[in-house]
C-alpha cells in the first residue's frame, strides 16, 4: 500500500512532524487535562469548598494558561531553531520565502537540491527572514483502540495554530472564570456553573490540540454539549431551555455533515487506515486524493462549519444562545466554541483549498457563504434592542469575515482575525454583562441609556472594544480586517494586492461589512451609554439577574467591582495591542523584524501538510479606503444618534432611542426591509414552523398512522383468530395455573410443587402443541417449495 509507506515516511522522516521536541510541546496534553480534572473535582467536592468550587476551576485554568504560555515560548524557539535530522534527504521540505509584496506565490515548492544549502544558512538573515528553518509540527500520540487493522489514536498535534488556540482559549477562559465569580455570585447553581465552565474549557482545548480527525469530532461534540448545558443554565424559564435545545439541534444538523465529511476523508485521504490529520493533509497536498472526494468532503464539512460557526443560513441558533449567562456568551459564543468551525477549516485547509479550488478562482462556496454572512449578520445587528443580540449578530458577521478569509485563501488573516476577535468580542460581551449586572436587563431601549455616567470604566473598555471591532486604526481589528481585505486579491488600484485569486465580490462585501460594523456599534454605544438613563423601574421578570442576590439591586446603577473590571482591562489591552503582532510585511513604519511575526510563527508555510498558498501584499490605498468606509459608517450613525436623536431628546425632554419620524415610517420599502430584518429573514419561521413543525407534526403523525393503521391493523386482523386462541391460553394458564400457583403459595411448599406440576402437566403442553402443529404445517409447505 503506497499510502502507508508514504504516511510512515511522512511521519518518521520528520519532514513536517517530529515526536521529540521540547518537553512543553510534547506534553501539551496536560493543558486540556487540568480543566478536565477540575470538572470532576468541582462536581464531587465543589459544594464543600469555601468558594463553592470556583477556586478549583480558576486554579486549573490558571495552570493551563501558564502551561500554554510556556508551550507558546517553547514553540517560538522550536519554530526558529529546530533542526530537522536528515533534512537534506527529504524532498518534502519546502522553503518558505517570507518576502512579501510580490504578486507571485512566495513559496518555492520543494527545492530539493537547494533546501540543504538553506538549512545551513544563518538563522537570522539580514533581512529578518528565517527561511532556513522548516515548519515542523510536534506530534505525540497513543493508541486508543483498534479494529480491523485500523488504529484509532488519541494524541496531540502542536504547531503554531494549536499553540495560538491553546493560549487564547485558556486566557479568555481564565478571565471569564474570574469575572463569573462576581457575575453569577449567589446563583442557585453556582457550583454547577463552574463545573461546566471547566468541562467546556477542557473540551475546547482537547479539540484544538487533536492530532486526528476522530478526536476532533469528539471535541466538537463535547463543546456542543457544554454549550447546551450552559445556554440552558437557567432552564426554569422556557425561552432559555428552548434556546439550548435549538442550539444543540441546529448543531446536530451540521454534525451529519461532519460525520460524512470526516468519514469520506478517512477513506479518501486516510486510505481507510488512519485518521491522522497530518497524513490526510499531506496526502491531499501531494495530490494523491481524487478531486471529487475532496469536493464531497469539503461540502459536507461546510455544513458543520455553517452550524457551529454561525454561518448563514444555519446561524439562527447563535443569537438565541444569548439566553445563557453572559460569561458563557463571551467565552463560548464569541471567543472559542463558535470559532471551532473556522479552526477546523484552518486545520484541514488542504481539503478546502483543493476541494473548493480556492487558488486562482474568484468565487467558491466557503468564501461566498462567509461574505453573505458578514453582511447579512451585520444588517441584523441594526434592529436589535437587546445589547447581547447586537453583539451576537456582530459575532455572526465577524465569523463571516473569517470564513470568507479562509475561502479566499487568506489563511493567516483568518486565523489572525480569529485571534484578535476573541479578545475584543469577549471584552464587549463582558462589558455588556457589566452593564446588565447593574441594570438587570439587556434591553438597551427600555433599561439603559446614559450609562457612561454610572459606569465610566466599563464605558471606556466598551469604547475600546467597539473601536477594535470596527477596525479603527491602530486597534487590533484594523490589522486583522485589513489583512482579510488584502487577502481577497480583489483590490485593483495601484497594482493591487495579489493573493490566490481575484475575489472582487468578496472584497466589496468585506468593505460593506466594515461600514456596517462601525455603524451598528455606534448605535449600540449611543443607546447604552449616552442619552439619559431610561431604566430605574426594576421589574422582576427580567431574565437572568432576577435571581441574583445583588446588593445593588435597587436604586441607581453602580460601576461593577474589580472582579468584573480587571478582566475588562486585560481584554481591552489585548484589543489595543494584539494587532501589532502581525504588522503587514512591507509596512514601512516599523523595522522588518516586527513584521508578520504572527504569520511566521503560526502559518505552517512549507510544511507538507499545508497547501502552497499565495499571499497578498498590503496596500496603503486599500487600508485608507477601507478605514474611510468604516469611519464613514460610524459617522453616519453618529450623526443620526449623537446629533439628531440627541437634539430631539433634549427638545422633548425625554431619552429617545430613535427619531419619531424615522425612515421606516416614511418609506414603505424601508419598512419592508426593517420588517424582514426584525423577522430575521424569516429563517426561524422556516425552521421551527415549517421544517420542525412538519417533522414533529404531519411526518411523525403519518409515520405513526402507518404504524398503527397499516402495519398493526394487518397484524391485528391476521391475528384475530390467533388472538382468540391466545386468549384461551391466557385465560386458562393465567386463571388456572398461575392463580392456582399463587393460591398454592399461601400454603406449604408442598402446594407450590403441585402448582409447578400443574404447569408441567397441562398448559405448557398446549403451547408446545400449537407451536409444533404450526411448524409441521409450515414444514410441509416448505418442503413442497424446496422440492419445486
Amino acid at each position, binding site marked *: 500500500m503506497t499510502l502507508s509507506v508514504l504516511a510512515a515516511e511522512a511521519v518518521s522522516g520528520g519532514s513536517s512532524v517530529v515526536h521529540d521536541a521540547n518537553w512543553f510541546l510534547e506534553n501539551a496534553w496536560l493543558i486540556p487535562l487540568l480543566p478536565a480534572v477540575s470538572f470532576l473535582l468541582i462536581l464531587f467536592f465543589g459544594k464543600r469548598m469555601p468558594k463553592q468550587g470556583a477556586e478549583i476551576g480558576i486554579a486549573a485554568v490558571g495552570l493551563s494558561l501558564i502551561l500554554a504560555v510556556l508551550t507558546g515560548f517553547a514553540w517560538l524557539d522550536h519554530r526558529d531553531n529546530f533542526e530537522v535530522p536528515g533534512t537534506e534527504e527529504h524532498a518534502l521540505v519546502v522553503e518558505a520565502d517570507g518576502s512579501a509584496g510580490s504578486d507571485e506565490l512566495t513559496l518555492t515548492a520543494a527545492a530539493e537540491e537547494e533546501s540543504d544549502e538553506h538549512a545551513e544558512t544563518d538563522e537570522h538573515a539580514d533581512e529578518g527572514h528565517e527561511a532556513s528553518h522548516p515548519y515542523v509540527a510536534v506530534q505525540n500520540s497513543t493508541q486508543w483502540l483498534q*479494529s480491523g487493522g485500523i488504529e484509532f489514536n488519541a494524541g496531540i498535534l502542536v504547531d503554531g495554530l494549536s499553540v495560538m488556540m491553546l493560549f487564547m482559549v485558556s486566557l479568555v477562559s481564565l478571565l471569564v472564570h474570574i469575572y463569573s465569580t462576581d457575575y453569577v455570585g449567589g446563583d442557585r447553581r453556582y457550583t454547577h456553573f463552574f463545573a461546566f465552565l471547566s468541562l467546556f474549557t477542557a473540551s475546547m482545548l482537547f479539540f484544538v490540540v487533536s492530532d486526528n480527525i476522530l478526536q476532533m469530532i469528539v471535541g466538537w461534540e*463535547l463543546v456542543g454539549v457544554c454549550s447546551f448545558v450552559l445556554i440552558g443554565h437557567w432552564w426554569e424559564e422556557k425561552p432559555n431551555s428552548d434556546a439550548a435545545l435549538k442550539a444543540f439541534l441546529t448543531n*446536530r444538523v451540521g454534525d451529519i455533515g461532519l460525520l460524512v465529511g470526516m468519514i469520506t476523508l478517512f477513506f479518501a485521504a486516510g486510505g*481507510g487506515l488512519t485518521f491522522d490529520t497530518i497524513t490526510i493533509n499531506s496526502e491531499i497536498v501531494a495530490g494523491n486524493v481524487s478531486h471529487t*472526494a475532496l469536493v464531497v468532503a469539503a461540502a459536507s464539512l461546510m455544513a458543520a462549519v455553517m452550524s457551529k460557526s454561525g454561518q448563514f443560513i444555519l446561524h439562527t441558533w447563535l443569537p438565541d444562545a444569548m439566553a445563557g449567562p453572559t460569561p458563557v456568551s463571551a467565552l463560548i459564543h464569541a471567543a472559542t466554541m463558535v470559532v471551532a468551525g473556522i479552526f477546523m477549516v484552518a486545520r484541514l485547509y488542504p481539503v478546502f483549498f483543493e476541494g473548493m479550488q480556492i487558488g486562482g478562482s474568484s468565487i467558491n462556496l466557503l468564501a461566498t457563504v462567509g461574505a453573505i454572512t458578514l453582511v447579512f449578520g451585520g444588517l441584523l445587528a441594526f434592529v436589535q434592542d437587546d445589547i447581547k443580540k447586537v453583539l451576537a449578530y456582530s459575532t455572526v458577521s465577524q465569523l463571516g469575515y473569517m470564513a470568507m478569509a479562509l475561502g479566499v485563501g487568506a489563511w493567516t488573516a483568518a486565523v489572525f482575525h480569529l485571534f484578535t476577535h476573541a479578545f475584543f468580542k469577549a471584552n464587549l460581551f463582558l462589558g455588556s454583562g457589566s452593564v446588565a449586572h447593574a441594570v438587570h436587563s439587556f434591553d438597551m431601549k427600555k433599561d439603559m441609556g446614559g450609562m457612561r455616567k454610572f459606569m465610566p470604566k466599563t464605558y471606556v473598555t466598551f469604547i475600546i472594544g467597539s473601536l477594535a471591532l470596527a477596525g479603527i486604526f491602530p486597534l487590533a481589528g484594523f490589522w486583522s480586517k485589513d489583512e482579510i481585505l488584502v487577502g481577497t486579491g480583489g483590490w485593483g488600484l495601484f497594482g493591487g494586492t495579489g493573493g490566490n485569486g481575484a475575489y472582487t465580490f468578496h472584497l466589496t462585501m468585506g468593505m460593506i461589512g466594515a461600514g456596517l460594523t462601525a455603524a451598528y456599534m455606534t448605535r449600540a454605544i449611543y443607546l447604552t451609554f449616552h442619552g439619559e438613563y431610561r431604566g430605574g423601574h426594576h421589574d422582576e421578570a427580567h431574565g437572568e439577574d432576577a435571581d441574583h442576590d445583588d446588593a445593588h439591586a435597587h436604586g441607581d446603577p453602580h460601576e461593577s467591582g474589580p472582579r468584573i473590571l480587571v478582566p475588562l482591562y486585560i481584554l481591552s489591552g489585548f484589543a489595543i495591542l494584539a494587532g501589532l503582532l502581525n504588522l503587514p510585511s512591507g509596512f514601512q513604519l516599523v523595522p522588518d523584524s516586527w513584521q508578520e511575526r504572527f504569520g511566521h510563527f503560526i502559518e505552517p508555510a512549507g510544511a507538507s501538510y499545508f497547501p502552497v498558498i499565495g499571499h497578498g501584499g498590503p496596500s496603503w490605498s486599500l487600508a485608507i479606503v477601507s478605514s474611510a468606509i468604516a469611519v464613514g459608517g460610524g459617522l453616519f450613525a453618529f450623526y443620526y444618534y449623537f446629533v439628531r436623536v440627541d437634539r430631539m431628546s433634549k427638545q422633548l425632554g425625554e431619552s429617545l432611542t430613535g427619531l419619531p419620524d424615522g425612515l421606516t415610517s416614511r418609506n414603505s420599502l424601508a419598512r419592508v426591509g426593517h420588517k424582514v430584518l426584525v423577522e430575521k429573514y424569516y429563517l426561524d419561521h422556516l425552521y421551527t414552523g415549517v421544517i420542525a413543525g412538519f417533522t*414533529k407534526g404531519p411526518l411523525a403523525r403519518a409515520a405513526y398512522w402507518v404504524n398503527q393503521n397499516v402495519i398493526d391493523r394487518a*397484524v391485528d386482523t391476521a391475528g384475530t383468530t390467533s388472538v382468540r386462541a391466545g386468549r384461551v391460553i391466557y385465560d386458562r*394458564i393465567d386463571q388456572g395455573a398461575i392463580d392456582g400457583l399463587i393460591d398454592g403459595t399461601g400454603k406449604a411448599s408442598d402446594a407450590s410443587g403441585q402448582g409447578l406440576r400443574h404447569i408441567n402437566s397441562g398448559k*405448557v403442553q398446549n403451547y408446545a402443541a400449537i407451536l409444533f402443529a404450526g411448524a409441521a404445517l409450515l414444514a410441509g409447505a416448505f418442503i413442497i417449495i424446496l422440492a419445486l
Partner: protein
Amino acid sequence: MHALIAASSGATFPVLTALVVTPILGAVVLLLMPASRPEHFKQVAFLISAVVGAMSAWVMFEFETGAAASFQFVDRADWIEGLGISWALGIDGISLWLVVLTGALFPLAIVAINAEHTPKAYFSWILVLEAGCMGVFLALDLFAFFVFFEIVLVPMYFLIAQWGHGDRAYAATKFFLYTMFGSAFMLVGILATAFLTAAETGNALTFDLVEIAESQALATTTARWIFLSFALAFAVKVPLFPVHTWLPDAHTNAPTAGSVILAGVMLKLGTYGFLRFGIYLFPEAAVYFAPLMLTLGTIGILYGAIAATMQRDLKRLVAYSSVAHLGFIIIGTFALNTEGIEGGILQMVNHGVSTGALFLLVGMLYERRHTRQISELGGLQKPAPIFAAVFMVVMLSSIGLPGLNGFVGEFLTLIGAFAAHRWWAVVAASGVVIAALYLLWAYQRVFHGPAEGENATMKDLTLSEGLVMLPFLAAIVFMGVYPKPVLERMEPAVDALIAHVEANVDGFHEAEADELHPIELDDLEHLESDDADHGEGE
C-alpha cells in the same frame, strides 16, 4: 471458523452449563420456599442472579483473548443421541460480551424493582428468563438454541400479562404470537438444515452448529430459503421494520424489569441470531440478502426515530428509540466487515446498558409520579437534580455523544457501513440527528421549565437507586473512554466469521476500509453497479 475448539481452557468446572442451570435451580428454590416471608424472594433471586453474574465475570476474566476466535469453556454431552442432538455450550468473542451483559443486567433489574404482587412467581419467571437468555447466547447446537429461544418467550409472556400495566393482556398476546410466528419458520428452517445437510453429506444426522456451518453442503437456492426462515424469526425479535409493532406495546405495558430485560437482552437474541446462525450457517445467503437487510435497517433507523418523536408516553418513546438503535446494529452486521460487525456487537452491549438504564429511570419516574405522560411532567430537574443528571448522562450515551459508550459503536458501524455501502451510511448518519431531537426534546419537556403540582415535590434518587444506577454509569463512561479491552476480545471471532464468509462465497471480499484507497467517487455509476452486483449475487 471454529474448526478448532479449544479444549475447554483447562477449566474442569462446567461453568457455561452452570450459567444456564443455576437460574433454573434458583427458580425451583424460590418455588419451594414458604410464602410466609415474601421479602426473602427478592433477596434469594438477587443472590442467585448475582452468582450467575459473578460466574459470567469469571468467564470474562478467564477468557483467552488470543483464542477468541474459537469456542472456549465448551461443555458437550449427548442429549438425544438418535437425532444427533447434543447439549453443546461454548463461548467466543462474539457471545462473550452478551453473556456478560446478561449476567450483569439481571441482578440489577431484580434488585432495582420490587414485585408489585406475588413476588414468588415474579422472581421465578425472571430467573427462568435469565436461563433462557444465557442458553441462547451459549448454545452450539441448533436444537438447543431453538429450545432456549422458545423458553425465553414463556416467562416474558407471563411477566407482561401478570405484572404489566394498561392493556397488558393484548400486549402479551401480541408479543407471544408475533414471536411464535417467527419461531415456527425457524423451527422448519432448523429441521430442514439438519436433514438436508445430512442428506447432502451422507453423514449422520447432526444439529451441531460448527459441523453444519463448516460443511456448507446446502445448495445455494435452498440455503437462501432457509436463511429467510431464520431471518424472519430474528427480524421479529430484533425487531426490524416492518415487524416491529409488538415492541412498543410490549414495552409500554411490561413491568419495569420486563422492559429492562426486554430491551437490554432479549432484543439481542435476534441480532445475535443473525450473526451466529444467519451469517455463519448461510454466508452466501447473507451476502445475497445484505442489501435487503441494510435497507430494512436504515428504514428502521429513520422510522423508529420519527415515530419516537411524536410519542406522548415517555416509555413508548424509549421503546421506539430501540427500533432506531437496533437498525444501527443491523446495518453494522450486514456491512459484513470487521468494523461494521464489531460496531454492531458493541452497539448491542451499548444499547443494553443505555436503554436498560433509561427504562429503569422511566420506571423510577413512574413509581413517583404514577404517570409517564410527558405533558404531565415538567421542571423535574428542580426537585430531583441527581435524577436529572443521571438521566442526562444516560440520554447522551443513547444519542451517541463522544466520550460515552454509544459513540464508539455508532462510529464503527458507520465506518463499516460506509466501506461496504456508503449511501446507506449517509442516510443512517442523519438518524443521529433525529435521535438528538426526540430525546433532548423529551428531556426538555420533562426536566426543564417550572415544576408545578406534584412535580415540584418529586423525590430525588435515593441512595439505593443511585447504587443501582452506578454500574450503568460506570459502564457508559468506561466503554466510551476505553473500549479497547472490549473490542480486543471480540476481534478474532469477528475476523474468523468474515474469513468464513469469504471462504464460502465466491467473489466476496470484505469491503475493507483500506481497500477503498483511493476512492474514485468520480465514477458513481460504477459504484452503484457494484452494489447492484452484490444484490444479484453471482
